[in-house]
């Protein structure tokens, strides 16, 4: 199960449906490796480790979800404004007054590791 949109990044072909039958058969091997690279990139971006054994399964399941959401491509949305919020409201502004006092002890009681009030993490290397 491979996802046609993966072609776009590579060949800059405009969307979608037109590609399906045409390229898929010929480029299967190529696509497989793109798919793999793509998943590895997503895993890096989202800091999720995917092991070797499951990568094909993950790829297949993601592919089927992407096929579902690909139905959107056929919709004519010319001139339709993108909707980020369900309600037509505007941002409320807060007065610039200190309302949050020091609760370090309570907030750090549930931290994995702290020292002298600092959260400890494995060394940060720039």
């Amino acid at each position, binding site marked *: 199960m491979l996802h046609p949109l993966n072609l776009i990044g590579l060949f800059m072909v405009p969307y979608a449906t037109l590609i399906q039958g045409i390229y898929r058969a010929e480029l299967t091997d190529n696509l497989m490796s793109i798919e793999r690279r793509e998943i590895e990139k997503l895993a890096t971006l989202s800091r999720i480790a995917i092991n070797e054994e499951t990568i094909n399964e993950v790829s297949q399941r993601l592919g089927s979800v992407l096929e579902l959401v690909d139905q959107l491509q056929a919709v004519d949305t010319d001139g339709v404004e993108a909707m980020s*919020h369900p309600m037509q409201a505007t941002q409320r502004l*807060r007065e610039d007054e200190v309302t*949050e006092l020091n609760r370090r002890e309570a907030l750090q009681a549930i931290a994995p590791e702290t020292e002298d*009030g600092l959260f400890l993490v494995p060394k940060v290397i720039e």
Partner: protein
Amino acid sequence: MSWDTVIGLEIHVQLATKTKIFSGASTAYGAEPNTQACAIDLAMPGTLPVLNKQAVNYAIMFGLAIDAEIGQVSAFERKNYFYPDLPKGYQTTQLEKPIVGRGNVEIQLADGRTKNVRIHHAHLEEDAGKSLHEGNFNSSFSGIDLNRAGTPLIEIVSEPDMSNAEEAIAFAKKIHSIVTSIGICDGEMSQGSMRFDVNVSVKPSGSDTLGTRTETKNLNSFKFMEEAIKREVARQIDVIEDGGTIAQETRLYNGETKVARSMRSKEEANDYRYFPCPDLLPVVVSDEQVEELRRNLPELPDARQARFVEQYELSEYDAGILSSDAAMANYFETVSSACKNPKLAANWTMGELSARLNSQDLSIGNSPVSAEQLAGLIVRIADNSISGKMAKEVFEAIWAGEGSADKIIEARGLKQVSDSGALEQMVADVLAANQAMVDDYINTDEAKRKKKLGGFMGQIMKASKGQANPQQVNQILAQKLNELL
């Protein structure tokens, strides 16, 4: 071959609000680690942001100060990346609809030219926390302090309108001057209140094609910025002249070692996946709000410079220096109005005081000598109570915390003797006690006599323990010696 340099700046300005941009936690500098990081700042599950009104107002004030378009509707986006000082895993910032649009800043150069630098936009965003690499913990760890996380920033993005380090520094200083003048930033560079990212590229002189640029991040002083630009320009020219190409990259300049290096880690996966923040709604700014802020906008540096020339009869140059820093301008005006002597107030503020502050890396806001104390000193200089030389001693004593000028003059007995009767007596005594010198004076060729006066002056000042008014002594001395001829 000769080269043109193209420089653009991104300036992060911490806004001087009492609280964070999205939470009610304090932004005061220097608190114990994580004592000013509330549940929202720590990105605890279920917490939500609410926007700080003052941060919005400050951003608008900056827009007004650079004559920019104010975004009537602005919006926040999430910029996604993982870093320990970024608790949510995304920075809330503005991309598509920034609050401040295009504007202009005029800079003055040393040769007297002025130049316009275009501002592409300025947007609101939140600051990150800090990673500490040394502390009371195992060296394989870093300690994370999130007190700074969520501090409001405006990021000011210039067009690449600057063509050398001097222009870039002039621009950076002008922005510093503007934001401190309108009171939206404390301008404390040493505390990170302003940080600069510098985009630099070079191209063959006259070419229309821009070269590949590099970005040197997080410079926190004008000095480091100047060094970093000069070194980067030289590096790029070297690379190209040696047949190499410039890689588009982010660089980090170390002001201590004066070495810049590539931050490859930051490049590796540079896909920030911006999208509209669903927790925040569009920010709508009304015309009334903008007009009210415009009416109350404090004086801008250029206007203040013109006023200083007009009101205090200062030179353009002096007025320019004094008005470039809001704290210095305010200090000067306080001194001037208290001592009623703008010229001396300007000289002392720009001269002795600034030199002392610089030498100790202090800002004028933290000056050990208050404006009132300096004014007190100037009053005593102006009324001839003390000499210029004495004044420096008194200034040092005020700096050391010994109190007001009058108190120090009194305590140290530094008051200048200007009483002409006393001075005449003093001169007469010295002349009488030094007959040989007087004879020598009389016998000297008229043209060379003037040189001999110094010897008498020294004796008289010694006799007066330095308190004699030198101008008066000069006069009396000349008069008395003339009588003997």
